[in-house]
């Protein structure tokens, strides 16, 4: 298994290598709580698909996240995925993760009536990162992300869903919860408290939570 070999022997290796987040209607409110909680030395890259109007230039919350410690950056094709960044999908392109941990883009047909699609990101990331991936589905009004979380869980990754009761639009978290048995069902505040500590978990199986 490629991931296993790559990280074997590194006693400081992390249990997880990336966090993917899917957000749609009402997702900005949750992201505004979660993303600023991540410290500048956060060791996992964060990759975000937020549904937007195709004519919109970037996530609607960019201008409100100046106080984020991590760099907010539009993902470019063939770009190596690195810690220290929150990457977002360019509008009107699907964002994918290649097996060599670089980004791919496509203008293939919409999936779940949307491009970028959360499922497209999650499914490709699940194949690249295997069990070393954390997938989070936040507020939204369609079922995008549900199949993606299934793919992550099937490969042993960690699956987190926003508590529908805390979501502005509960449809997407509910659809996700119908598709998978989530490892955690959290409010945005709980995700904000939990996610920064996740990178402390080592591969030796000793968990800190």
């Amino acid at each position: 298994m490629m991931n296993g070999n790559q990280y074997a022997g590194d006693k400081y290796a992390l249990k997880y290598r990336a966090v993917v987040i899917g957000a749609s209607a009402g997702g900005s409110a949750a992201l505004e709580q979660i993303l600023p909680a991540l410290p500048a030395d956060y060791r996992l890259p964060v990759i975000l698909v937020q549904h937007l109007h195709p004519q919109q230039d970037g996530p609607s919350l960019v201008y409100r996240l100046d106080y984020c410690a991590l760099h907010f950056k539009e993902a470019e094709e063939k770009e190596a995925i690195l810690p220290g960044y929150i990457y977002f999908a360019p509008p009107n392109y699907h964002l994918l993760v290649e097996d060599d941990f670089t980004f791919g883009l496509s203008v293939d047909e919409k999936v779940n009536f949307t491009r970028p699609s959360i499922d497209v990101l999650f499914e490709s990331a699940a194949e690249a990162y295997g069990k070393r991936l954390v997938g989070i589905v936040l507020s939204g009004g369609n079922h995008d992300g549900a199949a993606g979380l299934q793919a992550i869980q099937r490969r042993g990754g960690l699956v987190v869903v926003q508590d529908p009761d805390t979501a502005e639009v509960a449809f997407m978290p509910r659809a996700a919860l119908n598709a998978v048995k989530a490892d955690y069902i959290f409010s945005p505040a709980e995700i904000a408290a939990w996610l920064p500590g996740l990178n402390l978990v080592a591969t030796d199986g000793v968990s800190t939570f």
Partner: protein
Amino acid sequence: MQKEEDIEKIELDLLLDALHQRHGYDFRHYARASLRRRVRNALAKLGRQHISDLIPALMWDESLAHAIISDFSITVTEMFRDPDFYRAARQVVMPYLETYPFFKVWVAGCATGEEVYSLAILLREEGLYDRATIFATDFNEQALKKAQDGIYPLKDIQQYTTNYQKAGGKQSFGDYYHAEYGSVIMNPSLKANITFASHNLVSDGVFSEMQLIFCRNVLIYFDRTLQNWVLRLLTESLGTGGFLCLGAKEALEFSDVASQFKVSDAVQKIYQKRRPG
């Protein structure tokens, strides 16, 4: 015991070898993540479980093989996609073409043709259409046929009209098509100077002395090796001073041909070929 996803990777390699050896289509240097999605879609459509189940079909069922090849290579586009790009092309490229009594344009990877009609409209409005010889090429025969027919769903026209206006269109977009039964057909006069031809960027040769090449949202589907290969082919096909226009999220700054171009518009990905030396 190998994991399921490792077995799938072997299956995909075998499938791509089969496609190449049996049909001459080489997808081996396509970016894998997108290709894998397309292969899965083809599997679902055909009701097969495993990628390797497609191999016998590719060997022996000619029509199914062509359907599969078509599914692997179809790209989705729209008229005046990225209106700001067309606005920039109007300002940057058209004055250069104006200096030629006759010029040649290549739309490489034209898919279903939306882009070549957009370009034809642009040339017409700048009074340059009659001087143009336009080559529109793709290796996907089904897509190329659609491009040649120039018939598009009426439901997309509202979006295209908005794009056209944002792109600096000088007339009414409705002047360029005729609507009938839920479809529109592009004015045949737009096709007068367009030659539609089958050409595979992966395996076919250069065109000579083009003044303008459009190759938009094609390179994102390739790996670095194939991107460099195709960029060299496009560079060789351009005359000195000719323009190369790439997709909004494609760039040649980090490619093997970077030094042969001057950046005319970094945001809209418009590049001009320098004089040698």
